[in-house]
């Protein structure tokens, strides 16, 4: 069994004219790879009417609604993170309440506000209240500002995680570019921070270093926007892990940090 903890889909109001094709491609590739659940988010309009990493409240809602619609079409394949922009606290909280009531199982924070900012605390409190993990977009060693986002690095995410020890945080895409060793050093002793393996980066040594830093109990499999590199890391995990540890990374750890029973019989 396999859970992709970092998936995305598109929708008609998004930037992509080929949104349906891309969604179908992800689902078809998922069938070939053996993905039981795509745990996905939609980042607003993906840049069409507000920036991808700074989605307007209106776009946040449109994106979350599109994901809910997609989940209703694929109730046995797709689960959802509710995407929020923490700069709009009331809207963010109401979106979490609304979407959790409709079955979403986690919270997605992109890069609208630095991870260590106090404005993320209400989101953390809400996550604790509902027992939801937070998937946080992370730039692996930021060093400087990057255009188009208020990116966070692992050190900043760990500061937020320390303030909310009862919440599981997922450090997004260790293969998403940047100095991944920097991130792994930062999360080594952050017990409530999990590392997702997604991203296009597939460097030699990355999987081993991740296992060395967080062990197989805090490692999660995901693909993000490149399922080929996700499959590559999966194949590599097959070689370096014993079956029990492999199952933990493939789905067991996800089952542990998401609300109980959400993956149901498919697992």
């Amino acid at each position, binding site marked *: 069994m396999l859970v992709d903890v970092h998936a995305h889909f598109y929708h008609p109001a998004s930037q992509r004219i080929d949104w349906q094709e891309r969604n179908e491609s992800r689902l078809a590739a998922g069938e*070939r790879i053996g993905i039981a659940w795509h745990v996905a988010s939609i980042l607003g309009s993906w840049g069409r009417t507000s920036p991808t990493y700074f989605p307007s409240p209106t776009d946040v809602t449109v994106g979350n609604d599109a994901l809910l619609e997609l989940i209703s079409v694929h109730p046995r394949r797709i689960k959802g993170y509710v995407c929020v922009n923490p700069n709009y606290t009331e809207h963010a909280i109401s979106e979490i309440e609304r979407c959790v009531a409709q079955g979403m199982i986690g919270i997605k924070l992109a890069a609208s506000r630095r991870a260590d900012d106090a404005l993320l605390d209400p989101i953390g409190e809400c996550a604790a209240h509902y027992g939801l993990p937070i998937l946080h977009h992370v730039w692996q060693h930021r060093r400087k500002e990057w255009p188009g986002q208020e990116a966070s690095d692992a050190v900043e995410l760990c500061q937020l995680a320390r303030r909310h020890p009862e919440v599981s945080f997922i450090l997004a895409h260790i293969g998403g*570019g940047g100095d991944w*060793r920097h991130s792994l050093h930062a999360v080594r002793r952050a017990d409530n921070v999990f590392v997702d393996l997604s991203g*296009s980066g597939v*460097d030699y040594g990355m999987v081993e270093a991740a296992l060395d830093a967080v062990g197989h109990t805090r490692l999660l499999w995901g693909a993000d926007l490149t399922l080929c590199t996700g499959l590559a890391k999966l194949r590599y995990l097959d070689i370096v892990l014993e079956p029990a540890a492999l199952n933990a990374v493939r789905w067991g750890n996800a089952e542990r940090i998401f609300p109980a029973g959400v993956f149901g019989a498919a697992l």
Partner: protein
Amino acid sequence: MIIDVNTFLGHHPFRRLDGGSPAAIVAGLERVGIDQAWISNLAAVFWRDPTEGNRIVYQAATHHVCLRPVPAVHPGLPGWIEVLEEAVDRESPCVRVDPISYGIAPSGSEMLALVRAAAERNLPLQLAVRLEDSRQRHPNDLTGELPAWAVRALIRSHPEARLIVTHADRDLIEQVHFGSTPDEASRILWDICWLWGPPEDQLQLLVTTIGAGRFCFGTGMPLRIPESSIAKLELTELTPTERRAIESSNARLFARS
């Protein structure tokens, strides 16, 4: 049979990188079922004289039958013609040149002289657009990327020139392919290591729009694990003929024989 045209030996000058020894490379090939790898010296790409890294490449190829040497040539340094001659004598499938890393104009007079000399020897030139994601570079690694216009200029500069371009993304490939005549485009082979599979399906699209005949298998090992390019092929709908072409026959036809 699978031929990996894009493999490196050695170390990265800006960060720790495991897996660059000949033994580790061979183990990686065996692990995923790659039969042959064309190898360059990774660290030497950054050296003032990259040809000083050729000896270890030739040595590794001598000791491991599955490795074929791709020596570096720097057309701005004295003796570069001899480097080409040695490559021919030692049956290299191609030679590599990294003009941006060397600090020379990517389609300047030195490069044009190299294209001509290589073409006259029926020797393809291998060029990398990049070696790794620009987001993960060391702050002092400010090397730029090979631009599409330079590739177009190089292929136009000699009617017998042949280029193997590695680490190219979809956009660059399309800009060069559709910015070239059919004859020019037919003399370029692109490796697949920087093309993404689903859901973007870049390789799938390019096989449809450009044709499988223009692509070859490459991994970029050890900067990337070889499983990545294997997985890409697995997730792309290819006919057996197309897959064979990408996995080996295009590279075999393109290599200097």
